[in-house]
C-alpha cells in the first residue's frame, strides 16, 4: 500500500513539473483564442464552453475561422473530426504503456489527450501512473480554459512578438522531448527522419487533404519503421 502511495506522490510531483512547459505554451495561445472568439461575435459563455468541453486548440481555431466564413454547423463538426483523427493513434499508443486498473479513470485521461500532453506523457521515463497523467493534463486544461476567458475579458493579447515566441515554446518542447531519445537510439533517429520527410512531402505536395496529413504520416512512417527496423528490445 505504502509503495503505491509513494509512487502516486512521485507521479503527482513529476506531473506538475512536466506540465510547466505546456502551461507556458497553452496560456498565451488560449488567450489568443478568447480574443479571436470575441471578434467573431461568439459570446463569453460559448467561448468558455468551447475550451471547457472541446479542449482542442487547433480545432477551436479552425472552428472560429469557419464560423467567420459562415460554414454550416454540420460541416464544421466533420472538419473537426478529420482534424482529430490523429488522436486515435496517440490514444492507442498510450494504451500500451498505461497500466490502469480502474476503467473509470480512463474516461478522464482520454479527455486530456492533446498533442502536447501526449508528447510529454508518452516518452516519460518510468511507469506511467494515473497521478502523473491527471496532474499533467489537469494543469494543462486549467491553463487552456482560464487563458481563453482571460483573453476574452482582457480583450487584448500579449504583444505579437512575445506571443509568437511563447507559441514556439510548444514546438521547442516537442524537440526537447525527442532529441534525448534520438541520442539514445539509432532506431528513433531513423523513425524521426522517415516521419519528418514523409510529413514534409505530404504537406509540400498536398498529397493528402488537410486533417489526414498527420494521421497519414504517423501510420505510414510507423509502418515503414516496423518493416525496416530491428527490434532493439528497448524498455520504452
Amino acid at each position, binding site marked *: 500500500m505504502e509503495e503505491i502511495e509513494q509512487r502516486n506522490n512521485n507521479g503527482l510531483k513529476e506531473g506538475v513539473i512536466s506540465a510547466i512547459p505546456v502551461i507556458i505554451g497553452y496560456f498565451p495561445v488560449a488567450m489568443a483564442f478568447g480574443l479571436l472568439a470575441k471578434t467573431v461575435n461568439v459570446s463569453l459563455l460559448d467561448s468558455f464552453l468551447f475550451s471547457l468541453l472541446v479542449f482542442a486548440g487547433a480545432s477551436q481555431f479552425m472552428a472560429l475561422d469557419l464560423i467567420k466564413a459562415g460554414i454550416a454547423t454540420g460541416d464544421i463538426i466533420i472538419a473537426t473530426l478529420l482534424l482529430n483523427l490523429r488522436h486515435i493513434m496517440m490514444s492507442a499508443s498510450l494504451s500500451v504503456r498505461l497500466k490502469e486498473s480502474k476503467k473509470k479513470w480512463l474516461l478522464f485521461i482520454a479527455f486530456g489527450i492533446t498533442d502536447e500532453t501526449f508528447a510529454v506523457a508518452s516518452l516519460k521515463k518510468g511507469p506511467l501512473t494515473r497521478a502523473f497523467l491527471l496532474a499533467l493534463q489537469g494543469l494543462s486544461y486549467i491553463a487552456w480554459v482560464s487563458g481563453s476567458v482571460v483573453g476574452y475579458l482582457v480583450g487584448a493579447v500579449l504583444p505579437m512578438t512575445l506571443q509568437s515566441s511563447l*507559441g514556439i515554446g510548444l514546438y521547442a518542447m516537442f524537440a526537447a522531448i525527442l532529441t534525448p531519445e534520438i541520442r539514445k537510439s539509432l532506431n528513433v533517429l531513423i523513425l524521426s527522419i522517415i516521419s519528418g520527410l514523409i510529413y514534409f512531402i505530404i504537406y509540400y505536395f498536398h498529397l493528402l487533404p488537410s486533417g489526414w496529413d498527420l494521421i497519414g504520416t504517423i501510420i505510414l512512417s510507423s509502418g515503414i*519503421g516496423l518493416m525496416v527496423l530491428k527490434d532493439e528490445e528497448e524498455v520504452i
Partner: protein
Amino acid sequence: MKSYLPLIIGMMAVTYIPRLLPLITLSDRPIHPRIKRFLLYIPYTALSALIVRGIMQSGNIGIPITLLGIGVAGMVAWFKGGMVLSVLTAIGTTFVLFVIL
C-alpha cells in the same frame, strides 16, 4: 448573440470519441508484439511530424527563426537535458531574434 451550443456539443463528441475509444478498448488486452511495436513507434513519428508541421506553419514568425528556436531547444536538450530549461531558452532565443531581425 447566436448560441453555438449545438456546434460545441458536436465538436466535443468528435474530439472526445477518437481520444477515448482506442484507450478503453486496447488497454489491458494482450496485443500482438508487432502491433505493440507499431504503437510504441508512434510517439517518435508523431513528434517528428508535429515538429515539421510547426516549422512549415510558422506564420508571422517565419521559417528561419522558427527553425533556430526549435534547434536551440534540441541542442539544450541534447547537451544539458531538462525540458523546462530547453523550452525557456528557445522562447528567449526566438524572442530576441524576432525583436532584432
